[in-house]
């Protein structure tokens, strides 16, 4: 009887359309990192909607509303912890997903466009991290915004909409908050939809150098992703239970005493060497990422037969690791 009910529901809801065949290796951690990233993003959206009930997006009350949330609201500290650690886990799974796609050369023909959409999603995630850091409006947030405004002012007319001069009557914090909860999510969902569509359209890339193996139904992969998502959620809850994310007091203008979160501390280290790297470095990185499928155009996909590509990957990872460590232990030698 249960089977009959399932079959009936499948037919009524069109769920039978999800029974298409996909490669069996889809149910592996390597090929589910994108799904784990999506799970972390879902946790962020749900926890973010709940958090938005308590946040007041004005400069005078933003920081206080967060202190109120973690001090006074029952389990407010846990909710904020979930949101914060979901972002941290998303950063890790996103990076691992990108590295996997690069190693398996899944950006090659015919998936170049999906790689570019992925680069767009990476830029959006970076913007989420930045705006999320700013809206807590403590010293770290203020200094992050200060650096951002320094860049925006040097971009001329392009940067003008990102500055306070564009709308003097509306606090910039308010606009950043609105971007964090509306504009960025909308664009992200659009690109995410396209990203998933092209994964379906082009089908999951095969494992380089291996013959096509058995296939499974997509619903089996869905069950695997559900389990992975619950695992991600458990990890996020555990981190939120153990470690409270930082939250300082309202900022004091004119000071530079903090460092950015680890996702941005590499650029802090570069800035110490050469301040304009705040503009140059991100532009170069995005350009490099965009050019990957157009530079590496051979049909070879095995990592063993792509020594130059692997060398570039290892050097890039080492470069960022060294900068993150250096930025974490060094001190600022200039001021904006």
């Amino acid at each position: 009887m249960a089977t009959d009910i399932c079959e009936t529901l499948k037919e009524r809801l069109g769920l039978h359309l999800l029974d298409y065949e996909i490669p069996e290796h889809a149910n592996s951690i390597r090929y589910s990192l994108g799904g784990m990233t999506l799970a972390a993003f879902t946790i962020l959206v749900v926890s973010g909607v709940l958090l938005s009930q308590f946040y007041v997006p004005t400069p005078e009350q933003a920081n206080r509303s967060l202190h109120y949330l973690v001090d006074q609201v029952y389990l407010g500290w846990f909710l904020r912890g979930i949101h914060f650690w979901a972002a941290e886990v998303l950063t890790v799974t996103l990076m691992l997903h990108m590295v996997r796609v690069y190693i398996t050369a899944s950006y090659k023909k015919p998936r170049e466009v999906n790689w570019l959409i992925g680069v767009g999603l990476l830029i959006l995630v970076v913007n989420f991290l930045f705006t999320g850091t700013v809206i807590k409006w403590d010293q770290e947030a203020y200094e992050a915004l200060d650096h951002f405004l320094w860049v925006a002012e040097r971009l001329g007319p392009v940067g003008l909409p990102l500055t306070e001069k564009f709308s003097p009557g509306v606090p910039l914090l308010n606009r950043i908050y609105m971007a964090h909860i509306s504009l960025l999510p909308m664009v992200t969902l659009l690109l995410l939809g396209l990203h998933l569509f092209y994964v379906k359209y082009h089908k999951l890339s095969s494992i380089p150098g291996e013959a096509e193996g058995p296939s499974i139904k997509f619903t089996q992969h869905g069950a695997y992703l559900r389990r992975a998502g619950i695992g991600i959620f458990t990890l996020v809850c555990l981190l939120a239970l153990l470690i409270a994310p930082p939250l300082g007091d309202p900022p004091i203008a004119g000071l530079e005493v903090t460092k950015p979160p680890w996702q941005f501390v590499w650029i802090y280290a570069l800035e110490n060497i050469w301040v304009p790297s705040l503009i140059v470095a991100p532009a170069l990185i995005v350009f490099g990422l965009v050019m990957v499928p157009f530079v590496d155009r051979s049909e070879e996909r095995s990592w063993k037969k792509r020594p130059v590509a692997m060398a570039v990957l290892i050097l890039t990872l080492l470069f960022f690791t060294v900068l993150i460590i250096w930025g974490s232990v060094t001190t600022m030698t200039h001021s904006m």
Partner: protein
Amino acid sequence: MPIRLLSSLAVFFLCLSLGLASAWAHTDHKEEPVQTPGFSGGESIYAAESEEEKSNSELFDSSTSDLFEQAPNHDKMEMPMESGHMDHAMKHAPAVKLSKYQWVPTSQRGYALAAGFTVLAGLVFGTLSIFRPFE
């Protein structure tokens, strides 16, 4: 299956260790006048002080205050070359209470419920990992 379980655990602990590593990495700052103690553990980091409670009760006060809490010295701190001037600057340096990662104390309100929720999520994950329904 053991390999898959080991792989799952490996990714789990990778994310956990990176999270903990970022917590320890976010501690180094240049000299600051005031620092909050980190990893105190013994007292609630979210303990509401009387001043905080007063300020929280004024949460929806519509008074128009300045954008920032103004420090006594509004100008950016200079970086003088002479050590004597440096001492003078430090004496007048505004106090900044910086934020740090801290352990959540078990005395935190709702901690038991949060822990129970986490354990439940872990049990669901564990059960699904063992029985693998629909996979």
